[in-house]
C-alpha cells in the first residue's frame, strides 16, 4: 500500500563523481532507516528549482525521497509497504 507523506526529513548522503548524489540513511519520526539500494532516480523542475527524486529501499519497504535544491531540504514523499 502506498502512503503519501510529504515530510521534511534528515538524510545522510554521499556526493561523488560518478553517482553525483546518493542517500545513504534517513531519519523519519525518530527512527533511522538505512538505504540498502537506490532503485531509481529522476529529476523534476518546479519553476526554477530542481528536485532530485530517489526511489530507495531498506530491504523491507520502498521510499520516495526528494531533494529540493532551492530549499536545500529532503522530503519523504511516499512510503510503500512490503517488498
Amino acid at each position: 500500500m502506498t502512503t503519501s507523506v510529504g515530510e521534511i526529513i534528515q538524510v545522510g548522503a554521499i556526493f561523488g563523481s560518478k553517482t553525483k548524489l546518493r542517500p545513504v540513511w534517513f531519519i523519519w519520526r525518530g527512527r533511522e532507516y538505512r538505504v540498502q539500494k537506490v532503485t531509481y532516480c529522476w529529476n523534476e523542475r518546479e519553476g526554477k528549482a530542481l528536485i532530485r527524486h530517489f526511489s530507495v529501499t531498506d530491504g523491507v519497504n520502498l521510499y520516495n525521497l526528494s531533494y529540493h535544491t532551492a530549499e536545500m531540504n529532503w522530503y519523504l514523499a511516499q512510503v510503500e509497504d512490503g517488498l
Partner: protein
Amino acid sequence: MHVDMNSFFASVEQQCNPRLRGKPVAVIGSNKRTIITTASYEARAFGVKTGMTVPEAKKLCPDLILVTGDNKKYTDTCAQLVSLYKNYSPAVEVFSVDEAFLDITGSTRLFGGEERMARLIKEEIRERLGLTCSIGIAPNKLLAKLASDWQKPDGLVIIRAEEVITLLEDLPAKELCGIGPHLEQYLAAMEIKTCGELGRTPSVLLRKRFGVIGEKLHLMGLGIDDSPVIPLEEEEKIKSVGHSMTLEKDIWDRNLISLHILQLSEMVGRRLRTYGYQGRTVALTIRYADFTTFTRQRSLKDYIAHTTDIYQSALRILSSIRLEQAVRLLGISISNLCKRAVQLCLFEKGKKKGLATQAMDEINGRYGEFTITWGTLLLRYHHSGVISPSWRPER
C-alpha cells in the same frame, strides 16, 4: 537506427519498485475514469492492452497491479536516454517519449560496426537504467522503425539494402508506419494489401486517389524513404499548442464547463507564452459521454497569447454549440502561430492585463505551475496531463 523502449512506463515503474518486477503491471492515469496507458509484458500475456478501461483489463487479468503514472519520471528518463544516444551519434531525433531515431552513418566505424554499436547502446541502457529496448537498423527511417517492431522485447534486427524488396513483398502494407486502419481500408478497396502490391501500383494511380501522399505511399511500398533524421536542435517550429482533459464525471452544467475551459486556457496560454508564441485560431474540442467527439474553431483578427483572450474565444465557441449530451472531455488548442513580439498597448486596461500576466508567469515560472492562479481555479481539477506528442527534452 530506431530505438524503441520496451513497455516504457511500466518498465520504469518496475525498476523503481522491485516488487513489481516479473508481475503483470499496468500504468494508468490519475483520473478516476482512466484507461491503461501501458502494460508490462507480463500483463500483455493476459491480453491487457493500451487503451483498455481498467475493468476490461482486470477481467482479463485479475492479479493486474495498477500504478498511477508519473509523467515527470518518464520525461526525465527520456531526457537521460537522449543524452546517452548523443554519445553514439550527434543526429538524434526524438520521435516520441519512448522512441528515437539515430543517424549512425558517420559513427558506426567508431564503434566496430552497426551491430556492435546497437549492443553497446542496449547494454548501456540496461546498466544505467535497468530498462530494455528493441533496436532496428536499416538504410532509412521507415525500414528501421519496421525492423525494431519485429523483435520485442529486447530485440535487435538489421535490414540490409539487398534484403528490402524480398522482405516487403508479402508484408501487409499496414505494418508500415504511416498506414493506419483507414488508409489500410482504402488501399484494400484498390486491392492493395501488401507492400509489394503497393510498390507495384503506379504512383499516378495512387496520386489520383490520395492526392499528394500517393507518391509517398508508392515509395513506401518500395521501402524508399529519404526523410532525414532531424536532430532536436533543428526541429521545425511548433504548429499548435493544446491541452485536453477527461472530466471526473460527465457534465451538462455550462458554468462548470466554463471553469474547466478556464483551466485549459491557462495551461495553453502558459505554454504558448513560455515558448514565446501567439496564435490566431482557437479550437474547442468536446467529447460526449458516448465518445462522439468534435472540434469547432474560430480564427481571430489579431494574435493572442493571454489566458483571458483564449478563454473568451473558447467561450464564444461554446456559446455557439447546443450540447446534445453530457460532456466527458474538453480540449483547447491554439494554432496559426507566430513568434510573439513585444507589443505596446495603447490602453490602460490592456497594459494592466499584460503586466498582470507577466507577473503571474514569472511567479509560476519560478515556483511552479499554478502557484498563483485565478480565484475560480483554486478548487480546480488537478490535471496531471498526458505527455504531449510535441514534448521534447530541453536542449
